[in-house]
């Protein structure tokens, strides 16, 4: 038997290895083939809806027509899960890619899934789905062997047909094998996975499955689903976090034609069939408010974080810091800051709920349909099996749709109103209730010996959490200390919700670390690429740095060279990434123009190369925002940025030339691709600004005002 080529990583990213997975699934593996038409699948055991599936059957259905349906609890928010999972299944089952369908994010049809985040779809669930398909193939071949009266070893599968290797007339299709039967079979031991070398679909670009629907307007998002009689709800909101609406006078709204006022616990909502008329009714509600006691704003937050963050814990260490200090010829200390950043997906949080025969169905824009189902059931006091969450296309998530408050609101209002209720947040509600990427303070003290080696690294991050904090350079004496995480908001550290934002915490941590590495390189008088290579032993990190340099056409030069070149690297979601950028700085205005970026990524096996490139480009482009402009302003609990007029996200005119390259490593397990490249953006641009001007900027975003301050400082020195 061919040993499995792809196994989930054991690289500390939390992925299971194969043995752990099999021990979870137990030895009694079986696959059932049924005749039920797609997408109905009464075979999904209730247990599979509640926790991680232990039954491969939960992921696959093979119809009598030979078509295969894959069921995964992930969602499609543009990242391409809809396209890459069928690739894995088609390759492993030996069926044409076009004969594989996929159902995503439906809690009644798909096996339980924690949610779509952490770039885990392919790297964690991918091997599970592959194993399911491999199991199915093995069972089907065994069935064919019986039917054809031939030894299984003499058979091969081509395009869903099992046939004799020597006599192609002896053949039977998957569809014929499953027709009219329900079969349960047990396989002893792990199913044989195909080696990557014989795969014909995985590793090659597959056309996006969502393309036609998305360019023709047929693609449905949660806000496009309209059950008969559905009403829009607009909900009375407090003006600030910490403020309380004590009374809502809804008389004037209620008098408007077609308006219903519904109260459900603490929710007061105006309902109307037309959204703009619901808006008008909401404006007619007079609220009495107790103001917020919060006095923080985007400037005072950093001192507050330093003061109030928990003592934290050390997440990585080695050697003795005192030894490092003794051995250091030069010590460089610096504090780095980063503000709150909004997710700002173009689709605001949307949901519609409908109660039918005692079952509540909620269509929601969410990254976590299964946890959301549980939360909804609890909120409306229904048994979990009486709630179904369906996730249509999600119009951008980036971590911000990991909660689902709008779906709970829609569910509660539906129960209270007795009609289907739609909740589509206004843009200002989206900003107000966003769980921001937290503000962060990062303090680094590092030391160099006389030969350009880093001998001391003392790192403390406050607010951003652990991801991306630990450094990967070969430093004998180091410590990484983390105070407060990127979610949870323990002890009211932050004035509003915080949560996962594309590579949570890593954007702040990599900005600080890679800026500081650059500072050290300049102090040592060594080119920043050479300095990194000199201080690294990690082969894969060196590999991506060299690949990015080759793609960029980088030539070494020490100090602030005036060319405007910057470098940054890191690891995220199991993937190694390095970027090199060129910028121009307008010294009269402080405006930064990013001219081009070369980005190299080592993500092991690349399942869908063009899909992975799209994610890299998306990361680099989106990352321009937190790097150049994005910083949520707030005061007294109110979020001051309420729309795209004042909160500037990347536009066409900002986008540089992007060159992406993969370090080919197809025999290594596939790793995450939706997040890694974004982590390099802050530092690669800040380092390029230093190279262009000599100004070292230590606070994100690199606004024009901060660039001007940096330039003034250079002139003074």
């Amino acid at each position, binding site marked *: 038997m061919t040993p499995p080529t792809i196994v989930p990583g054991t690289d500390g990213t939390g992925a299971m290895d194969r043995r752990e997975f099999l021990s979870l699934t137990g030895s009694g593996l079986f696959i059932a083939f049924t005749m039920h038409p797609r997408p109905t699948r009464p075979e999904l055991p209730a247990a599979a809806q509640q926790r991680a599936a232990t039954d491969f059957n939960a992921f696959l259905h093979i119809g009598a027509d030979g078509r295969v349906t894959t069921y995964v609890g992930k969602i499609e928010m543009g990242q391409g899960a809809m396209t890459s999972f069928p690739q894995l299944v088609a390759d492993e089952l030996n069926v044409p890619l076009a004969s594989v369908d996929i159902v995503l994010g439906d809690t009644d049809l798909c096996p339980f899934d924690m949610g779509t985040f952490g770039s885990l779809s392919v790297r964690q669930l991918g091997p599970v789905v592959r194993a399911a398909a491999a199991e199915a193939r093995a069972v089907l071949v065994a069935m064919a062997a019986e039917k054809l009266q031939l030894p299984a070893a003499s058979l091969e599968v081509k395009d869903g047909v099992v046939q004799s290797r020597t006599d192609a007339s002896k053949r039977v299709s998957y569809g014929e094998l499953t027709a009219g039967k329900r079969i349960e079979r047990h396989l002893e031991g792990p199913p044989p996975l195909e080696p990557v070398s014989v795969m014909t679909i995985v590793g090659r670009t597959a056309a996006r499955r969502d393309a036609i629907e998305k360019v023709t307007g047929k693609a449905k998002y949660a806000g496009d689903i309209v059950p008969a009689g559905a009403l829009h709800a607009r909900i009375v909101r407090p003006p600030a976090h910490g403020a309380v609406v004590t009374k809502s006078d809804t008389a004037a709204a209620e008098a408007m034609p077609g308006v219903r006022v519904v109260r459900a616990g603490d929710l007061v909502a105006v309902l109307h069939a037309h959204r703009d008329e619901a808006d008008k009714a909401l404006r007619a509600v007079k609220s009495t408010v107790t103001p917020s006691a919060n006095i923080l704003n985007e400037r005072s937050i950093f001192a507050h974080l330093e003061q109030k963050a928990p003592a934290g814990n050390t997440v990585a260490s080695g050697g003795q810091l005192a030894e490092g200090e003794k051995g250091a010829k030069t010590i460089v200390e610096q504090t780095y800051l980063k503000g709150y950043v909004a997710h*700002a997906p173009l689709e605001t949080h949307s949901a519609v709920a409908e109660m039918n025969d005692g079952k509540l169905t909620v269509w929601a824009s969410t990254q976590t349909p299964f946890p959301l189902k549980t939360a909804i059931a609890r909120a409306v006091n229904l048994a979990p099996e009486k709630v179904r969450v369906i996730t249509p296309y999600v119009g951008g998530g980036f971590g911000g749709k990991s909660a689902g408050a709008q779906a709970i609101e829609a569910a509660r209002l539906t129960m209270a109103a007795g009609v289907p209720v739609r909740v589509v947040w206004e843009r200002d509600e989206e900003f107000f209730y966003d769980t921001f990427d937290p503000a962060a303070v990062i303090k680094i003290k590092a030391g160099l010996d006389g030969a350009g080696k880093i001998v001391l690294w003392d790192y403390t991050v406050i607010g951003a959490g652990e991801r991306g904090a630990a450094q990967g350079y070969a430093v004998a004496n180091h410590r990484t200390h983390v105070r407060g995480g990127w979610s949870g908001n323990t002890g009211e550290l932050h004035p509003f919700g915080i949560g996962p934002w594309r590579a949570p915490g890593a954007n702040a941590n990599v900005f600080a670390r890679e800026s500081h590495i650059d500072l050290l390189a300049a102090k040592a008088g060594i080119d920043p690429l050479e300095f990194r290579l000199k201080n690294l032993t990690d082969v894969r990190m060196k590999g991506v740095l060299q690949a990015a340099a080759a793609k960029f056409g980088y030539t070494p030069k020490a100090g602030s060279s005036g060319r405007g070149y910057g470098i940054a690297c890191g690891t995220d979601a199991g993937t190694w990434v390095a970027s090199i950028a060129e910028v121009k700085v307008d010294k009269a205005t402080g405006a930064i123009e990013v001219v081009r970026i070369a980005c190299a990524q080592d993500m092991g096996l690349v399942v869908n190369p063009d899909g992975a490139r799209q994610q890299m480009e998306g990361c680099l482009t989106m990352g321009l925002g937190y790097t150049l402009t994005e910083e949520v302003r707030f005061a007294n609990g109110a979020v001051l940025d309420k729309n795209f007029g004042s909160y500037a996200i990347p536009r066409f005119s900002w986008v540089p030339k992007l060159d992406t390259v993969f370090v080919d490593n197809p025999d290594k397990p596939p790793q995450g691709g939706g997040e890694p490249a974004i982590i390099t953006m802050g530092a690669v641009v800040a380092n390029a600004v230093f190279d262009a001007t000599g100004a070292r900027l230590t606070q994100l975003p690199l606004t024009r005002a901060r660039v001007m301050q940096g330039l003034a400082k250079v002139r003074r020195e």
Partner: protein
Amino acid sequence: MKTISFTLNGAPRKVTIEDDRMLLWVLRDDLGTTGPKYGCGRALCGSCTVLVNDESVRACMTRATSIDGKSIVTIEGLAAGDQLHPIQAAFVKHAGFQCGFCTPGMILGAYSLLKKTPKPTRAHIAQAMDRHLCRCGAHVRIVDAIEEAAAVMAGGAK
């Protein structure tokens, strides 16, 4: 209340509406046309873009009564049956989208651009599309797609 008549994707329509209704919500809520999306409500993002007499407008800030007697095309009406418009085909070919939420507005914005400027440079495309926001970062591919669509359309295809 006012009754207005117009064509929507080629079909005659008549609605009786309050004078202050917005085109976006009349299209979505009264007529079930969900291609135009709500993104910002302030004409800042472009997700709600539709064509009125072949000009792109932001439906979220357009009074519905202003379209009386006019021709409205939404993303649903751009293809000729199963035949994609060259801009749609180019968006498919170049994967000029990710989540797809801004895509209807992007494509209609591009339509409007190419009508005025059939042979735009990349810089011109970037400038003309600058008020259309995409959060996923598909910008480079959207520009690729518009560039290709321009070439295809100049070649006589419509």
